[in-house]
């Protein structure tokens, strides 16, 4: 029990540390004043834009992949392991891998550069880094949700003239919607918090690739108030997403 208490204390004290921050200016509205600052606003916009696109990409590409993984076929386990790899891979390594593949002198990057396309250190790079790191969370949860659908229902749909695509739309996805929503929210939150892969592959260009977590890190060096203001937003978002996901999850288990 003592050790459990220690762990709880660690979380609690860290949170209190963040919430108890008293800014240098000491006005009650310091939080909103910080939000007015260009560096904070830019980071907010970059993060919102990039994570919105990442979430859409994850939803549109991750759902068919999860449908595929929820079926039985030879090599399924291997593919699932491959897809889950970014979950345990250190994000910095993922970022480096992206850089080596799509960077200026990278494997594909070189060919892309000849075609006049530069990916590294752009918003696209931010989106790619976020998608790579966050997509597995969605795909794994969506696969689990699809696997809970009674296979007999999929068989029944097939004997009722339904192609697999039609079956997916009308039979497999609708009962899984709450679980998919929760999974997407978690993946989005993960993308929002992405730091290591983004800074490695996309760099730290304010207004272009500087996301909120990167701004926290950079601003934290000399302007703690801005860093704390952004952190509070991230904390609020994390809390809302977690609570929302839990509510949807409980609807799934009912």
């Amino acid at each position, binding site marked *: 029990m003592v050790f459990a208490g220690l762990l709880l204390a660690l979380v609690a004290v860290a949170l209190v540390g963040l919430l108890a921050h008293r800014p240098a200016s000491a006005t009650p509205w310091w939080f909103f004043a910080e939000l007015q600052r260009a560096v904070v606003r830019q980071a907010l916009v970059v993060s919102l834009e990039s994570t919105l696109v990442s979430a859409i990409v994850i939803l549109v590409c991750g759902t068919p992949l999860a449908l595929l993984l929820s079926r039985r076929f030879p090599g399924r386990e291997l593919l699932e392991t491959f897809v889950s790899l970014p979950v345990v891979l250190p994000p910095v390594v993922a970022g480096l891998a992206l850089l080596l593949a799509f960077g200026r002198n990278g494997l594909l990057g070189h060919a892309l550069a000849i075609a006049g396309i530069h990916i590294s250190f752009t918003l696209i790079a931010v989106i790619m880094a976020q998608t790579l790191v966050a997509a597995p969370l969605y795909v794994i949860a969506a696969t689990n949700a699809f696997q809970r659908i009674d296979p007999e229902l999929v*068989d029944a749909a097939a*004997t009722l003239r339904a192609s697999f695509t039609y079956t997916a739309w009308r039979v497999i996805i609708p009962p899984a919607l709450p679980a998919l929503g929760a999974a997407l929210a978690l993946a989005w939150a993960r993308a929002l918090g992405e730091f290591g892969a983004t800074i490695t592959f996309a760099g730290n260009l304010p207004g272009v690739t500087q996301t909120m977590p990167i701004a926290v890190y950079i601003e934290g060096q000399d302007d703690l108030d801005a860093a704390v203001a952004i952190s509070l937003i991230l904390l609020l978002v994390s809390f809302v997403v977690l609570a929302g996901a839990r509510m949807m999850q409980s609807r799934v288990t009912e």
Partner: protein
Amino acid sequence: MSLAADFSARRDGFALNFAIDVEAGETVAVVGQSGAGKTTALYCLAGLLRPDRGRICCDDHTWFDDSSRAYVPAHRRDVALVFARGALFGHMSAHANVEFGLRASGVAPSYAAARARVALDVVDGAHVAARPASMLSSGEVQRVALARAVALAPALLLLDEPLSALDIRLRPLVRDALRRAIAAAGAATVLVTHDPAEALLFARRFVVVEEGRVVQSGDIAALRDRPATPYVASFAGTNLYRGQARSLGDGSSDLQVDGVTLVVQGEHEGEISVVLDPDAVTLSATTQTTSARNVLHGPVESIVHDRGAFRVTLGSTPPIAARVTAHSLAALEIAQGTSLYATFKAMEARVL
């Protein structure tokens, strides 16, 4: 319009050899104990499982042929399958379930809705149309499942134990719906069941499956006349004994069955099979001295209706079924577990 199939398949290490022919408008029952391969056969016919060898043809279409590598997947076959537990889509209304097959095949929504209503009427299900499928009782689920199949007007209707998941009380109601659904579909119909009464009610021809192969097919007279196995015999309501015969030299022979010696007419040597009509078996509460040379003893295991009388099966060694009138049933106070003697004359056992 008809089905002609002859194939072998493999599922989870289980091997099946199966053959069936069904005319349009005809119902053929596939009977056998659970695990015999009935459902595997049905899945192959539906296109949910791909056989290894053989052919499956329906009307002019070849659905499977290993020699030409032809294979039509389930959703492109003109087939409908009714599952034992309905397999309704719980998040849709009953009506949406019935409509599903038509909508999936691209039929205009208004036409699909109209046909779904007609199909629901066939099974007396109009009053549950708007209800979510997850809120239906088991009897309603099975009726909606039947309507869902009927709405497609398939060339081949497959029924996988459609009444087995139901409470005994609900069966008569769903049985009537099943009868109307089969008539309305007018398809070549394959009914899979382990219940002889259900099979006899709906089908004239039977395919008996045991341990992954067809042991016999034909009408009830053929099965009763020359049952291929004891299971076929019990299904057809008769007795089959197989054993080593030894001539007694007096125009009769000993027959060793399950360690018990029976006496049959005629001089026989080696392995033989004999059929004994349950009508020729006499039941009594005590052992008596009669001219009958065969006496078996055991408790009553089952009592079922059989063509206007009752068929009583004793758990003797070997088991024996006797057909008796309601009057005898009452006079002997026959009930489950009653200890009885069964006697029959040697000349009543017919050697195959």
